[in-house]
C-alpha cells in the first residue's frame, strides 16, 4: 500500500490520511466561526453552523455582520490602537532579549549561570498572579502610567523576555564560536559584533520569535483590558469582547470581528515567514 517514494522511504497512505484528517479536525472551529460570520443572528441562534453548510443554497447568507462591526463600533480606531500596542511590544522585548542572549552566550561575567536560571525560572510565573502588584506599581500610587500605552509596552516586554532570552540564547549558542573570536581579533567591539555579525546570523530565530510575540500581544485580552481599559485606547480584542452583551447579544458581530482581527497576524506571519531560512551560517566554518 504505497505510492511514490520520497527520500528513499515509502510514503504510507495511512500517514497521509491521518495527517489530512487531523488537519481538517483542527480547522473545524475556525470553519464554524467563518460560516457563522456570514449568517444572520437569528439563524445562528436557531441551529448550528453545520446545518448552513449542509443546506448551502437554502441558507440566507449575509455580509452585514462585517459591515456592522466595522461601522457600529470604532473598529478602525481599535485597529490602530492594537498596532500601536503590538509593534513596540514585539520589537522591544526582542531587542532587549537579543542583547541579553548575546551577553549570556558570548560574554563571561560573575553570576552568569545563576542569572540565566533565574530568568528561565521566571517563565513559570503565571502572569495573572503578577497583575495585582503590577496594577499598584503602575497605578496612581506608583508610576501612574496606568492607561498609557507605555504601561502595556513595559508589561509585554517584561512577560515576553524570559522565553525570548531562552530561545534566542539557545540559537546563538549554536553559532560558530570562532567567528566571534575572529571578530574580536578583527577589532570589533561587542556592539559591532552584535549588530554586524550576530543579528544577521540570528535572523531566523528573531523572525520566529517576532511572530510568536506579535500573535501573543495582538490576541491578548487581559493585559490590554486591565492596563489600557476599554476606552478610546482599547485594542481590537478588547473592543471585540465588549461587543458581546451579557445575554449573548452581539455574538454574530464577534464572529465577523474575529475574522477581521485575524488579518493582521496573518500578514505578519506571511511577511516574516520568508526569513525562516536554514543554512544562514553556511560557509562560515568548515562543516
Amino acid at each position, binding site marked *: 500500500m504505497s505510492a511514490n517514494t520520497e527520500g528513499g522511504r515509502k510514503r504510507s497512505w495511512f500517514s497521509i490520511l491521518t495527517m489530512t484528517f487531523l488537519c481538517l479536525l483542527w480547522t473545524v472551529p475556525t470553519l464554524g466561526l467563518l460560516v457563522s460570520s456570514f449568517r444572520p443572528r437569528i439563524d445562528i441562534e436557531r441551529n448550528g453552523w453545520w446545518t448552513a453548510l449542509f443546506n448551502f443554497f437554502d441558507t440566507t447568507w449575509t455580509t452585514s455582520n462585517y459591515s456592522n462591526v466595522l461601522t457600529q463600533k470604532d473598529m478602525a480606531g481599535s485597529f490602530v490602537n492594537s498596532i500601536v500596542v503590538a509593534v513596540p511590544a514585539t520589537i522591544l522585548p526582542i531587542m532587549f532579549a537579543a542583547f541579553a542572549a548575546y551577553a549570556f552566550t558570548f560574554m563571561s561575567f560573575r553570576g552568569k549561570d545563576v542569572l540565566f536560571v533565574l530568568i528561565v525560572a521566571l517563565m513559570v510565573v503565571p502572569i495573572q498572579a503578577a497583575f495585582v502588584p503590577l496594577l499598584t506599581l503602575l497605578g496612581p500610587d506608583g508610576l501612574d502610567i496606568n492607561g498609557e500605552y507605555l504601561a502595556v509596552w513595559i508589561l509585554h516586554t517584561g512577560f515576553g523576555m524570559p522565553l525570548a532570552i531562552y530561545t534566542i540564547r539557545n540559537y546563538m549558542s549554536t553559532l*560558530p564560536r*570562532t*567567528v566571534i*573570536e*575572529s*571578530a*574580536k*581579533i*578583527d*577589532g*570589533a567591539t561587542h556592539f*559591532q559584533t552584535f549588530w*554586524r*555579525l550576530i543579528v*544577521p*546570523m540570528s535572523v531566523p530565530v528573531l523572525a520566529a520569535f517576532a511572530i510568536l510575540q506579535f500573535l501573543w500581544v495582538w490576541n491578548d485580552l487581559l493585559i490590554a483590558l486591565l492596563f489600557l481599559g476599554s476606552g478610546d485606547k482599547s485594542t481590537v480584542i478588547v473592543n471585540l469582547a465588549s461587543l458581546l452583551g451579557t445575554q449573548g447579544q452581539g455574538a454574530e458581530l464577534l464572529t465577523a470581528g474575529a475574522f477581521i482581527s485575524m488579518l493582521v497576524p496573518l500578514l505578519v506571519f506571511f511577511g516574516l515567514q520568508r526569513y525562516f531560512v536554514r*543554512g*544562514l*551560517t*553556511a*560557509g*562560515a*566554518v*568548515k562543516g
Partner: protein
Amino acid sequence: MASVTYQNAERLYPGSTKPAVDNLNLEIQDGEFMVLVGPSGCGKSTSLRMLAGLEEVTNGKILIGDRDITHLPPKDRDIAMVFQNYALYPHMTVADNMAFSLKMAKVGKEERMQRVAEAAKLLDLEDYLERKPKALSGGQRQRVAMGRAIVRHPQVFCMDEPLSNLDAKLRVSTRTQIAALQQRLGITTVYVTHDQVEAMTMGDRVAVMKDGILQQVDTPLNLYDRPANLFVAGFIGSPAMNLVQAKAGEGAARIGEYEVPVDRTASSKMRGAITVGVRPEAWRITTKEEGGMPVKVTVVEELGADAYVYGTSGVEGTPSDIVVRIDARKNLHKGEMIYVTTDPNHVHVFDTESGERLSE
C-alpha cells in the same frame, strides 16, 4: 622589528591543577616561521591563542617586539589569525570579509579597497570578491581566511591548523603556497599543527610540545638529527624512529645478544636501562656472521623509490617492532629473516627513565 617572546608564560584553566601551558619560554625571531607541533592536548593551540589574546595568560609575559602585550585586547596586539575552520563571516562577500578588520580600524574606503585588491591578487581570489563564502570551495575559503589576515599588514600571523580541513592533495600544495607567501611578506608567523610533516616542511624552526611543556625548539633538521628526548625522537619522523629497550654495556648498548655501537659521549653517560633509537634509514643490512641484529620480516611496504620493512627483532626478552628502509629493488618477503646493523653516529641513546638524550 617584530619578534615574539614568551617569558615563563602559563595558562591555568580555572578548576584545573595542571596548567595547559606550563612555563613556556620561546623566542621567535623577526620574520621567522615558527611551527608549534605536538599531539592533541599538548597546549600548542592554547599557546597560540594566548599570543592572539583569546586566552588569558595566568602567569608570565608575552612580548611582541619589546611591547608587553600580555594583557592587551586582541585588536591592539597587531596580529592576525587564521582559524582551523576559517571562521568567515557567512553573510558577507569575500571582499567584505577581508575588509572587515580595516573597517573596524576605520581605514578609509579607498585604501580598504586597494588593500583587499592587493591581497586578492596575491591569493588568486580576484574573481570571487563578490561571492559569499558558501559559494566557495574549501581551498578558496581557506585563501579568504588567509586574505583576511594579510590585508591587515600585521606584525604577527597566528595560524591555527589552517590546513587540516583541506583534502590531502590540496593540503600539500597549499602548504608550499603558505610557506612561500610568508617568505615573501616576511611577517613573523606562529603556526600550529599536529602534523609533524607539515611542521618539518614549513617551519624555519619547530617547537615540539607535550603536556603543556616545551620539549625542544630547533630547525627541522636538527630536531630530526638530534632529538632532545624520547618524546621528540618518537614524534618527529615518519615512519618513526625505532626505539628499542637496551642495557648499558661497555662502549655499546646491549639488545639481547646484539651489541649496538654507541658514540663516546653516550657510552660515558649511560647507566642501566637505556633506550636506543635508530632511524629506519640508518640501518644497514648485513649477515648473521657479521653480528647483525636478527629481524623477522612481517610486512614490506614498497613505495617505488624505496621500501620499508616492518619486522620483529628476534631478541629474547624484548621482541620489539623494527622498521628498516631498504632499496626497493631488494626482494624481501614476509617471513624472511634479515640481519641489520648501524653505525655509532646514527645511534641515539636515551635514558629510559628520564627520557633524556645521552648521546652527543
